[in-house]
């Protein structure tokens, strides 16, 4: 009984956001049709994945697919491919929906204003202190702004601030990379020692 509810619970991360995506699509369908349609498509994929995972988990739990099955490896391969394709498709559609139609408004000024440059430093500092993977945005946006500033006639006022944000981003990403490598090495060493 506990395993059954475990199985239901594990479908939650895709099931609930899919419901929210459908409600949001209904709310905004009239004003933003393209993102709403993409979101419905993403919800469909996530929903299918949740149903598929639930069915497979139930079949495995009920012993319909056993560890002595001769085709078990083939099943695992196909199961992984189906599940990964559905989830990846759902993610990709949601990411596309987040940015589709964003370019229709005011033209992109290209480089950062003073306020945006200060925000870049804030993101860099926050990523360094709290959540290092966020630093990649400070790094990439800073690099893009500096490249635009190098162009002839571009405003050079915030160059130092943008540079500072970018450096903080680079340091954060470097620290995150070092953490990943250290974790991998530590786990390997501990495993070999024991």
């Amino acid at each position, binding site marked *: *009984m506990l395993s*059954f509810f475990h199985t239901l*619970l594990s479908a939650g*991360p*895709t099931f609930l*956001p*899919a419901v*929210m*995506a*459908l*409600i*949001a*699509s*209904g*709310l*905004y*369908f*009239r*004003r*933003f049709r393209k*993102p709403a349609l993409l*979101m419905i498509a993403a919800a*469909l994929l*996530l*929903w299918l994945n949740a149903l598929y995972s*639930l069915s497979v988990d*139930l079949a495995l*739990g*009920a*012993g*319909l697919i056993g560890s002595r099955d001769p085709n078990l490896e083939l099943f695992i391969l196909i199961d*992984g491919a189906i599940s990964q394709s559905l989830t*990846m498709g759902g*993610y990709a559609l*949601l*990411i596309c*929906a*987040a*940015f589709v139609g*964003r*370019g*229709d408004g*005011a033209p*992109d*000024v290209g480089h950062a204003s003073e306020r*945006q440059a200060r925000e870049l430093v804030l993101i860099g500092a926050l990523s360094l202190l709290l959540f290092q*993977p*966020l630093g*990649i*945005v400070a790094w*990439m*946006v800073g690099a*893009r702004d500096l490249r635009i500033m190098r162009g002839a006639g571009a405003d050079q006022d915030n160059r130092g601030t943008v540079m500072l944000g970018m450096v903080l981003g680079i340091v954060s990403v470097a620290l*995150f990379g070092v*953490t990943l490598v250290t*974790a991998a090495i530590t*786990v*390997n060493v501990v*495993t070999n020692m*024991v």
Partner: protein
Amino acid sequence: MSWIDVLRSNMINLIPATIGLILAVRFFHRSRTAALLTTLSCALAWTTLLVSMILRGIVSTTFIQEVNHDALEALHSISLPVFILLEGSIMLLLVAAVFVDRKPPTLLAADQSQGANISRHRGVTTLVLSWVFLLLFPSFAITTLVMGVQDLRAIRRGDLDSAGRRGMIIGVIVSAIALAWFLIALIASIWIARGVYDGSIALFRSGIY
């Protein structure tokens, strides 16, 4: 499970996360909130990889496997909510990023020709979609239900052309039927699945399987 397997099983997060980061950087100045939400979800995807790797390392430690079975079980029961939380947060952040900070489009030329700020109705869209969802994906009728209710409110306020009112009402009713049908089917499926699950376990334990 080797490191390569861990990486491969996390590809579902890593490839879209990389695409998301590229888009977030590209749109950072134009729609900052959406870019930040997307970045946060991408960062969580990377964190999921980190957590998977750490767990993989701990589980592969023979000390835990051979000596402390309770610790292994405790680890499994802790890791499930962690992954559910991470995956759910990634999805919810992306869903939030889709409509945040969007500027409403200007009135269409066809709408402007009607003179006032009254938009054209979407009764036909609501009706057709609700029937499609009833026949194919009843759970998706929640979208047409929300759409229909919102449009009916807009008609009452006078913001929307009232010509499609009848179609919208039928669409809302069809959507409600589809949702009720889905809920009944869901409860029945869970009930049957639980019965099959428990029955199979009982048969398995009694040695028939």
